[in-house]
């Protein structure tokens, strides 16, 4: 997958690129409005990550432009403006998603995956975890003996871990994914632990959950071959 990162903060652009390259994305970078338009004129991209606050132009115009010249590409708006209006306008112009700065790279990658699944019809709806099958579409955990019901948050947590399997997810990343940025003013919540405990309790009735690892002091990881 080819990604164009349009971001005037070079350091941030490099970090995003470094993270995505590890996940085998091919990344190009543009730091100005002009460069971005130029690169969009030359290359075709699968993903375009657009910072709205560029020094020499409005990122929203790039979104508009891309929809004409590069309609296959998926646009994700990244902005520190955090303005509801921008979000509405951006999505109206055809952007596929919207992320307010500061965001976790993990969250960005997950959103990209979600957009890709939707856009490029990649269906891997049934995932296997030990003795369990996870149906992402119907939001179900299926065991040969029974269908196990998880609460909405519990399922969100499990599927997020699953989509980022073999990677340690910190409690902060997990709680931000599930509860968003500012709904919560607790820094150090152990609520993630409570949810994980519940998931394990519900699944352990039917089989082992040793694929769900606790990484001491950091967070959790799903290990899957």
């Amino acid at each position, binding site marked *: 997958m080819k990604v164009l990162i349009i971001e005037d903060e070079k350091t941030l652009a490099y970090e995003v690129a470094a993270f995505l390259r590890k996940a085998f994305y091919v990344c190009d970078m543009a730091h100005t409005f002009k460069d971005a338009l130029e690169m969009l004129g030359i290359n075709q991209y699968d993903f375009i990550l657009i910072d709205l606050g560029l020094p020499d132009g409005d990122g929203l115009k790039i979104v508009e432009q891309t929809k004409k010249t590069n309609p296959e590409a998926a646009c994700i708006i990244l902005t520190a403006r955090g303005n509801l209006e921008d979000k509405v306008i951006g999505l109206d112009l055809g952007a596929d998603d919207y992320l307010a*700065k*500061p965001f976790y*790279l*993990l969250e960005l990658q997950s959103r990209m995956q979600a957009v890709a699944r939707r856009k490029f019809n990649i269906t891997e709806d049934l995932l296997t975890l030990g003795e369990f099958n996870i149906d992402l579409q119907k939001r179900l955990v299926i065991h040969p003996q029974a269908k196990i019901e998880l609460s909405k948050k519990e399922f969100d947590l499990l599927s997020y871990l699953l989509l980022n399997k073999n990677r340690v997810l910190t409690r902060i*990343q997990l709680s931000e994914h599930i509860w968003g*940025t*500012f709904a919560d003013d607790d820094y150090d919540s152990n609520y993630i632990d409570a*949810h994980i405990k519940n998931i394990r309790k519900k699944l352990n009735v039917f089989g082992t959950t040793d694929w769900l690892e606790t990484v001491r002091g950091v967070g959790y990881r799903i290990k899957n071959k």
Partner: protein
Amino acid sequence: MKLSTKLILFITGSKFAVVLLFVLCLPFLVQKIASEYTNYSLREQQKKVIKNVEKNGVDYYLQGEKNFGSYTMLKEEYISIEQSQFYNHIDTIKNAQRVFADNDTLNYRILSYTFINGNRPYLLEIGKATSSINQYNKPLQRFALYILIALIALTVVIDLVFTRILIKPLAKIISTKLLHRKFPFRKQLEKVKTSTTDFNYLDESLISLMNKVNEAFVKEKEFTANASHELMTPISILQSKMENLMADEPMSEEVTFRIMGMMKTLDRLKKISSSLLLISRIENEQFIKNNTVKPLQLIQEIVEEIGHRLRTQNISIEINISSSAMLKNVNYDLLFQLFYNLINNAIKFNVPNGSIFISDKELENKCYEIEIRDTGIGIAKDQIPFVFDRFSRTNATETTGHGLGLAIVKSIAIYHQLEINVESEMNKGTTFRVVFPY
């Protein structure tokens, strides 16, 4: 007392003082004028007589006799000319008594004057009865008094009207510049039209003061918005760097812990910044109030969102909200945030196995109230006035939050014109009441 009332009282008072003085002096004045006038007319008569004598000789009056005397019918005036034995000159006007043959005694004002005619001295006397001099004093005084009272009444009425007109701009300045003003002042102030320079000065000073207040307020808001906004990019960069660092395996456990600690601190910084940004966005009215919200549904959604926290501390929650209640022209997300923060606090500052009660009612003035009561640790009485202040942490511990939760609540309440009341007792619990206007 109002300025116009004071002015009128002062003007009227000073007028009455002047009138009183005048009324007291009036008898003397009138008498003085009467006596001056009498002297004057006596002199005029004297001139006439002397002129006649010079023209026609003294015999014109004496008719050959030694003396001449003439009284008017009621003895109010008389004139007499008689030969004098003395050559010394007399020229006086005096009051004197005259006794008549019928024992009638009368007071006269008498002009005595000697003149020489045909080498003989003569004494001329012209008298006027004092009673006749003073007979007009009383009516004159009364008349003067009436005119004076009428004049005063007239001027007081004119003063009343005029001061009203004069003072009017002041009332207008006060009502347009100071009262009926909602902070922050968004509307451009208009000058009050007046020709009084003092009022113009006051008006201009107030306008410039208000503009300064406004400017300071806007600047403060801008600063908060800009500062928190500008912090977002460096936070973003730091956060990404740490995330990339964490992904670089393998790492020793100690390093991992340290990075985790940094991430937690950064997360705290991020939450403070985004909370400040949220407050400034609410204050800048960047949210649209066009949702209709059912409070029961709203509270249920929040409780579902936050339910895991209730369970971890084994806190029971009782919701008693009418299913028909509706809130119109509100912003759903902001109200969600408001009640989320209040309920979150009710959990956070509760005791294990405690309770939370959420209920609603319609007040007597038809306002709608939602009450959130907890059985928590309570707020100290001296801290209650400050709970809504930014960064005021009444129960400051590591885990209670960044101290902006209630500041957000307050700004949302102000934006929606809601009233929020707090009642609390230490170790008994806290009650928050949110009152929606009718």
